[in-house]
């Protein structure tokens, strides 16, 4: 598959480069716009990051002056953007007072990405298998079973899964640690990853089933069949490959969601990730943390969407089908 991609990339050459460049520039402007909107949204938040209850006016003024929060929003924004290009995302006001946010995120983001990546892998793999099973054994009891499993996956909230798994496999059977531990990263990531993977698994299973059914009914599959290709080869060389592209499109935003941390699961398993950080930051008005985490989320989201779009542009399915024909 990879070499097709590069071949295609080469053949597109200059036009492609132009397209990518254009998209990257728009992406940067989009990110700037998002940052500005975040700044404005922060102004709407009631309360301040400081201990409202016990502070008097002069103290509050001193705190605002210290962090530059007394300046007009536009000035704050420009300061922030300039510092951002220098790699400085400001300091936390509340969650971890005066800690540079880059430091805070540097230690937490990898953990969220790790757990999220494991969850996506498990979910995508099992989901794919379930979806294929349902598509090939369509309208049989297998299909129904796969549907039921996948719907349970989307209909039971992940925190319920998390607690049930923790109770059964952590507490009763004592197979896995119940809480995340830096000394046993892999072992203690099992339960959170599995509980997080449920939603991905279910979505992928449902989508795979629909895509496979459509691909299996398409003309080129009939052609391949009539050429006398064997069942397995059709499935893996043709059908699955074509079904994968839209599946990846569905998977991409899920990947971003999971890698930027799930607050609920992080809270239950005491994972020092960024998901729980975002919620705490919103609830305690820790503006810089909210903006920084949202920015990272947006950047990852736009980045991944960009890659998917470019992939689409490069491997237009019709072109590839034509190549496979000979």
């Amino acid at each position, binding site marked *: 598959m990879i070499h097709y991609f590069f071949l295609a990339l080469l053949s597109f050459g200059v036009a492609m480069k132009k397209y990518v460049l254009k998209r990257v520039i728009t992406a940067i402007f989009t990110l700037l716009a998002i940052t500005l909107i*975040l700044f404005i949204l922060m102004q709407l938040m009631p309360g301040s990051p400081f201990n409202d209850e016990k502070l008097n006016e002069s103290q509050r003024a001193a705190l605002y002056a210290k962090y530059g929060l007394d300046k007009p929003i536009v000035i704050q924004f420009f300061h922030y953007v300039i510092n951002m290009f220098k790699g400085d995302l400001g300091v936390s006001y509340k969650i971890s007072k005066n800690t540079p946010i880059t430091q805070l995120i540097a230690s937490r983001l990898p953990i969220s990405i790790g757990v999220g990546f494991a969850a996506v892998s498990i979910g995508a793999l099992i989901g794919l298998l379930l979806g294929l099973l349902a598509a090939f054994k369509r309208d049989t009891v297998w299909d129904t079973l796969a*549907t039921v499993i996948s719907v349970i996956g989307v*209909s039971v909230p992940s925190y319920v899964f998390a607690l049930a798994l923790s109770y059964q496999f952590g507490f009763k059977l004592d197979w896995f640690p119940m809480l995340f531990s830096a000394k046993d990263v892999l072992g203690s990531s099992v339960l959170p990853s599995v509980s997080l993977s449920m939603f991905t698994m279910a979505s992928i299973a449902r989508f795979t089933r629909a895509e496979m*059914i459509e691909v299996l009914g398409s003309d080129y599959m009939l052609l391949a069949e009539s050429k006398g290709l064997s069942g397995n080869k059709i499935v893996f060389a043709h059908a699955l490959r074509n079904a994968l592209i839209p599946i990846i499109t569905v998977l991409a935003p899920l990947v971003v969601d999971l890698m930027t941390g799930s607050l609920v699961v992080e809270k239950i398993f005491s994972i020092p990730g960024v998901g729980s950080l*975002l919620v705490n930051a919103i609830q305690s008005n820790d503006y810089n943390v909210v903006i920084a985490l949202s920015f990272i989320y947006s950047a990852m989201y736009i980045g991944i969407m960009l890659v998917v779009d470019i992939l689409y542009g490069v491997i237009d399915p019709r072109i590839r089908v034509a190549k496979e024909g000979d």
Partner: protein
Amino acid sequence: MVEAAFDKDSYLHVVESDSYVPVEADFKLKGKTADDFVDTNFASQDFWKEVVARFWRKKSAVIGLVFVLIITFFAFVGPVMNEYTYSGQNLDQKNLAPRIPLIEYTGLFDGHENIKTTSGTKTVNYYFEKQLPDTFYWFGSDNFGRDIWTRTWSGAQVSLIIAVAAAIIDMIIGMSYGLISGYFGGKVDMVLQRILEIANGIPRLVIVTLLLLVFKPGMITIIIALMLTEWVGMSRIARAEMLKLKEQEFVLASRTLGAGNMHIIFSEVLPNIIGPIITQVMFSIPTAIFTEAFLSFVGLGIPVPRCSLGSLISEGFNSFTTHPYQIIPPIIVMALLMLSFNLVADGLREALDPKLKEM
């Protein structure tokens, strides 16, 4: 479909009138004659009839529909089936296990529960301990002594109203946005898609939380928040469909005849993509129910003492290991609701998409 039916009809005419020499009376001005009317009507009825027939043929979809109807029925009738109200507390009767008349004699649902204490498991029946021989909580009572049966169904009612309202509003906005973006293309599309990208790039939790903070918490705010998280998906689908259809002959024909843009978008193209749209709406209802549940868990759900399935689950979550019966009813109703809506949506998708039908 319409064209096919018409062709078949005219073909039959031709065969019949093989040796017939036409007279002037045979030709009529095109207008709303009885024949024409019956024709088109029949044709369109035929399409929807077939959709319905295809839907009925899919057993899982029918089962899903039946469950949706049953749950909807109970969501509106269930809360008034006993003397309790969703907010009425009775602290003397808190945390009672499920007890149902008659069935209690089988040993199930007789009000007993096993409490796991740190010093061992004990079986208790608070109905006897508190001397309540004639008290029945069908699904048990919660930590305020409120009836879980009543709360589960009124929660289902709230969840359904929120989800359906959010899905419909999100359909209207997302669909219009996507159709307009796809139809005009070029600069308009570019600008609209960038706006969409920005809206989508901000983590939903941030937008939703801020929205719920700025506005008074309540059903309407939650509906708006849910709509904000869903309309993007809907607009993508509408745009993709529009891109597929806008170069087709019937659009071209309509434009040649001088139809306005809005007429083409909403009267010509829209009816042709109603299938995927309805399917998407059906899929977005369970998503909305689920998102609402998530908001409840973060403490941004429906204000107490009102409840939704989501808030019931997060309330029951705290006594998950102590009184598990409190979380089970809302979870089962929610899972069933999600399952049925998904089955109905799957059924509809296949029924509406003739290409899938041939499989």
